[in-house]
């Protein structure tokens, strides 16, 4: 008999160990559920937001019962980490019931929220039944900048209130921002503020089109030069690129279209029950109102993973592939073809490679 004690292992180590096992066995351990595309904010760059009272969306969204049924199915197939996102998850009056149901099934939950709808009651609940982390996006350090992005007066104060309500109760919290042309000048101040709270901070400097095909968010992108400047200014970020570059230099090692790892152990379900392998590759989906999660995971997604590029596929020959955010789903949204490189990302990648080459030469 082995010693029957309970080894407590570091969370990161556990995560790394189990991820290598689940990829080999293709277990859907990482899930995301978008509970609604509706949102009380109206961010200029959002890829999906619908008005808070959009009646058609409300009618089409999965019911509480349907979501519970899906939660039961994903738990059965081995999901452990689940993110709730939107739109704004808390826009649904039944969100806490959904969260509670998932929590009590033993899912480790991340809640992605804009923070503005967090009330003392919701914060109390999250204190009692804590998520792995709540993640709030802070678009500015001043009202003017924050609300130039969210386009809702009063939202800055409400966001700060939400942050404070969670901080007071020691709910695990992460803060982040999306860098746009409207708030780029406040990025480092946001970082300073967040780190002064003792909270982990990260940012995303690249915007993608809306899921409905609108290119409107792209109008608020920062330039490729600015993206690379941010890479170079943030040592943690730069180090990640250096390591990535050392490990994976050269063209993709596979002849498949999807080489990013999506769909191997992760999935996404939209507010209407469509199952996808990730946030950006949305065409087509597997409808969970008509088929089971198991069928979608075991039959539908593997078919997508087997897809090969049709016709010319420049990325397949590109040495800079590992330094690039190119993604077939994103390309479909922006260029109309999964095969066609996104110019903006090519420009960023070339500049990034140049910057890293210069760094190597200097050393």
């Amino acid at each position, binding site marked *: 008999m082995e010693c029957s004690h309970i*080894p407590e292992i570091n969370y990161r180590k556990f995560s790394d160990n189990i991820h290598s*096992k689940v990829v080999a066995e293709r277990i859907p351990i990482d899930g995301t559920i978008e509970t609604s595309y509706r949102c009380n904010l109206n961010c200029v760059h959002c890829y999906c937001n619908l008005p808070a009272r959009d009646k058609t969306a409300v009618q089409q969204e999965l019911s509480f019962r349907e979501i519970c049924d899906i939660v039961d199915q994903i738990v059965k197939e081995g999901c452990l980490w689940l993110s709730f996102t939107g739109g704004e998850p808390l826009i649904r009056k039944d969100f806490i019931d959904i969260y509670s149901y998932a929590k009590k099934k*033993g899912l480790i939950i991340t809640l992605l929220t804009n923070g503005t709808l967090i009330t003392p009651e919701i914060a109390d609940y999250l204190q009692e*039944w804590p998520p792995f982390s709540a993640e709030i996006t802070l678009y500015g350090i001043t009202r003017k900048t924050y609300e130039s992005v969210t386009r809702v007066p009063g939202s800055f104060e409400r966001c700060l209130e939400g942050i404070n309500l969670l901080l007071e109760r020691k709910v695990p919290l992460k803060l982040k921002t999306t860098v746009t042309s409207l708030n780029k000048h406040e990025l480092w101040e946001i970082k300073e503020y967040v780190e002064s709270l003792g909270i982990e901070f990260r940012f995303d400097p690249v915007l993608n089109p809306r899921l409905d095909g609108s290119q409107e968010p792209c109008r608020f992108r920062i330039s490729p030069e600015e993206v690379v400047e941010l890479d170079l200014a943030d040592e943690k970020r730069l180090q990640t690129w250096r390591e990535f570059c050392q490990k994976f230099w050269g063209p993709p090692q596979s002849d498949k279209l999807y080489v990013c790892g999506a769909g191997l152990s992760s999935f996404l379900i939209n507010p209407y029950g469509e199952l996808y392998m990730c946030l950006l590759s949305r065409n087509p989906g597997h409808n969970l109102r008509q088929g089971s999660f198991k069928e979608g995971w075991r039959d539908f997604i593997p078919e997508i993973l087997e897809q090969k590029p049709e016709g010319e596929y420049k990325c397949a020959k590109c040495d800079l592939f590992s330094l690039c955010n190119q993604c077939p789903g994103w390309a479909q949204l922006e260029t109309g073809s999964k095969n066609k490189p996104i110019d903006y990302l090519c420009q960023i990648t070339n500049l990034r490679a140049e910057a890293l080459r210069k760094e190597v030469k200097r050393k």
Partner: protein
Amino acid sequence: MSFLDKVYKKSDSIVFRKIADEFILVPIRQNVGDLESISTLNEVAARIWELIDGEKKVREIKDKIVEEFEVTPQQAEKDLIEYLKQLKKISAIEG
């Protein structure tokens, strides 16, 4: 009361999951477990967890373990004492 006559029940603040042949205890409530680390169980510990049902005495659990695994009654008892102590410490069981 002797340790072997005690009866334990599982706390509803922790959930047992089996994923990719790993046995995991997921704390779901404030002050239960630690979010920075995760508790994993070996095969015997997972079986003991299954057997804790608010009705069986520790003695009955011990007998089952001796029956199902290659272990002496003395060793099984020693391990059970240690294991149940640890489960109590992380508030996974009550009793």
